[in-house]
């Protein structure tokens, strides 16, 4: 009898369906995956090390470059952690604007996900529709932040600036229109027989396995476990808004798709509420003069304000000794920052908890024993961004 051997296939790092530079070593028995070994780190830039050499304000710009599909969310998580250390309160208007922008960003990130995931599985049409709507969001965010992907707009102590007058009408126009757009996507995919065949029952993960592997975000909720940081530890006034947490049952690729689609609809609801009841007032903390730089008019008028501005820009600000962890529900899962402060103006240790990194750890569990063609579906369904996995 002929000798049987497993074949080892190298997938990536330059592979369009790995969404960046993920490399997988697959050991195959025919078309069945016997063993999969992910290899990551191709995009490692040493962000945690770099942060230790920067002041708290400077380190903010590094966070844009983690999950580059949702810069606003990364800014928010980082600022929440530093603000927790500083123990300052953020005005309601800034909190609502943070929620509004973070939810718009979540929609944009999910749109990018649904577009590329469908493209990976051969449904190309959706890409053009989803990117059209993503473009609207990015343009709206650019109007406020001046940047499409790297906003650095949420600052420690509030926001970089108040919104321009044209912003809210554009947001409202988008919000009114968007549910119809999601309906359109659903007609393309939800009942599509090819889509169902490629996604239903593919790489399922039970709720218990998800928890064991530390998986969070839509992947966890698709397996029927209700854990969403927005509900579990409400931050930035999320308790003021009315929204539901969609959950799946079977935890397969199809359920993850459904969960994300409903999440977009729910995010849309939150944006609508935040825009409707946006309070008036300042957008930066009033009780933190050593953290928030003074307004420009004040700098021109008052020498003390000028000195304060100079000091904040030149030296940053000192943060009390201690350690905190703050997290948000980003589009991928729980994004957290654990910051240890030694009382100086630079973080002593900044540990990022990137959701994609930990979710990717469960990939081997998902694909072992499955067909090689479904690896692409599984990777797409986790929604990884290598920028935050490799840091």
């Amino acid at each position, binding site marked *: 009898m002929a000798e049987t051997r497993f074949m080892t296939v190298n997938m990536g790092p330059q592979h369009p369906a790995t969404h960046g530079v993920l490399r997988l070593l697959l050991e195959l028995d025919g078309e069945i995956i016997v063993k999969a070994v992910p290899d990551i780190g191709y995009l490692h830039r040493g962000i945690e090390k770099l942060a230790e050499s920067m002041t708290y304000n400077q380190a903010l710009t590094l966070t844009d470059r983690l999950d580059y599909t949702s810069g606003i969310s990364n800014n928010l998580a980082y600022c929440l952690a530093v603000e927790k250390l500083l123990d300052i309160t953020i005005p309601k208007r800034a909190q609502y604007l943070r929620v509004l922008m973070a939810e718009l960003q979540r929609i944009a990130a999910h749109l990018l996900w649904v577009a590329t995931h469908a493209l990976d599985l051969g449904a190309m049409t959706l890409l053009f529709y989803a990117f059209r709507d993503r473009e609207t969001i990015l343009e709206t965010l650019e109007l406020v932040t001046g940047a499409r992907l790297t906003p650095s707009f949420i600052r420690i102590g509030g926001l970089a600036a108040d919104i321009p007058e044209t912003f809210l009408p554009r947001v409202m126009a988008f919000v009114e229109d968007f549910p119809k757009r999601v309906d359109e996507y659903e007609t393309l995919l939800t009942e599509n027989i090819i889509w169902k065949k490629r996604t239903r029952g593919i790489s399922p993960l039970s709720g218990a396995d998800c928890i064991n592997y530390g998986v969070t975000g839509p992947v966890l909720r698709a397996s029927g476990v209700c854990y969403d940081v927005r509900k579990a*530890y409400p931050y930035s006034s999320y308790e003021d808004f009315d929204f539901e947490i969609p959950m799946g049952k079977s935890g397969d690729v199809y359920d993850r798709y459904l969960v994300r689609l409903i999440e977009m609809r729910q995010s849309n609801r939150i944006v609508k509420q935040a825009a409707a009841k946006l309070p008036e007032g300042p957008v930066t903390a009033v009780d933190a003069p050593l953290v928030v730089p003074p307004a420009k008019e004040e700098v021109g008028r008052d020498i003390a304000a000028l000195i304060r501005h100079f000091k904040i820009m030149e030296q940053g600000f000192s943060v009390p000794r*201690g350690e905190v962890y703050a997290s948000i529900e980003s589009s991928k899962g729980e994004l957290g920052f654990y910051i240890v402060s030694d009382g100086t103006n630079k973080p002593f240790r900044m540990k990022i908890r990137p959701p994609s990194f930990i979710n990717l750890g469960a990939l081997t569990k998902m694909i072992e024993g499955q067909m090689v063609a479904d690896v692409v579906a599984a990777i797409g369904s986790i929604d990884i961004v290598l920028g935050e996995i490799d840091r």
Partner: protein
Amino acid sequence: MSKCTASDLLGGKFPEAVKTVSEFRGETTVVIDKARLREVMTFLKANEETRYDLLVDMAGADTGNESPRFFVAYLLHSIPFNNRLRIKVPVAEGDVLDTVSDIWRAADWMEREVYDMFGIGFNKHPDLRRILLPDFFVGHPLRKEFPLKGNDFDTPFRVCLEEEKGNRADG
């Protein structure tokens, strides 16, 4: 969010393992002895009153000049009770910790990262290799003495021809 009672429970159950319990900005941190790490973690996960089923994150840190030099922080979340707890374990240079990757599979990659960045080893880890940095990398970059620019920043790139390496393409 419910109140965290685990620190009292731990103090009662493992009085000699718990070194300090502290509260800061509403977060509870329990420092425990590294020899009892696995017992404490198993207890926290299995106990009916705590049920810390999700290992959210694990972070190493280099304190620089304190003794012991390093610590590893485990952040736990309990989905049934909705609260968080941080367990900190001081580690001296050259010491190894026991793995918790069989208690939470999530710890597998997290421990590899701590090993990669700080050089802290883990006993009985199934596959302790570098994770973010390449296997041939020398040093552990998040240690305080590691230069920010890296060790080879000023070394210029050099074109290395195949012939020079002694393995010509034709064999």
